[in-house]
């Protein structure tokens, strides 16, 4: 055994520099939604009331090939009369850049509480639909969706 070489600090410096450089190259992604942020967004929509699960349906495929357009349908069990109707339906997610998706305003005139649209999903996550009824009570239904191809990642072609 020969005498140990002095530790090559230059190599460490270079490695640390590379690390910093790599950090600098990471694309600036917006602070993503988290389950906590989604809970906060839902609380903001309900005004703090806790929505009761059930009596409504969030229909979405459990396995989605392309997160850029995910068809979803929300149905609420309601006779849609002047005394018992759905006032609004809000959609939330927990892993997109922003926890909110959309808020639909309905009313007794709608005749049927049934709204369909197409959304983007950045990754596999839970979706939550919350309905505000005419008497200011809240219902909810959630669905877990697995996404194969994520939206919101690739730049413009």
């Amino acid at each position, binding site marked *: 055994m020969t005498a140990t070489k002095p530790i090559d600090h230059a190599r460490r410096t270079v490695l640390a520099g590379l690390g910093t450089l790599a950090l600098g190259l990471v694309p600036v992604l917006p602070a993503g939604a988290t389950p906590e942020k989604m809970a906060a967004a839902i609380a903001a929509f309900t005004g703090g009331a806790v929505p009761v699960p059930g009596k409504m349906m969030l229909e979405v495929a459990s396995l989605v090939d392309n997160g850029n357009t995910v068809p979803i349908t929300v149905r609420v069990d309601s006779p849609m009369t002047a005394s018992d109707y759905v006032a609004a339906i809000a959609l939330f997610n927990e892993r997109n850049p922003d926890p909110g998706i959309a808020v639909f305003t309905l009313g007794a005139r709608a005749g*049927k509480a*049934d709204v369909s649209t197409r*959304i983007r999903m950045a990754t596999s996550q839970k979706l939550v639909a919350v309905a505000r009824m005419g008497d200011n009570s809240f219902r909810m239904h959630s669905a877990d969706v697995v996404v194969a191809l994520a939206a919101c990642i690739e730049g413009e072609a």
Partner: protein
Amino acid sequence: MARALVHMPAFARRGAVIEIRALIGHPMEIGYRPGADGKVLGRDIIRRFTCRYNGEIVFAAELQQAIAANPYIAFYTRALETGSLEFTWEGDSGFAHAETMPITVTG
């Protein structure tokens, strides 16, 4: 000028619940993606969709970036009187589009 398509029945019985499907061509740019030059593209989305039945708002939607490009919204309303339904889309950088569809209510 955006292209919009609205599908709904032209005739309905009084009190019937009709389905309305509205689609509009729009990129719904989320404001987080880099463009071809590497710079982040500014947000450009439709913020609000409104459906008025003879002037009265019967359905509205507040949209966010999580709504897919070319926003499609399907909903229902009750056919109460003959007249027209007006659909408006409003968005970032002054985007505005309106469509009007006539409806004849019988019975």
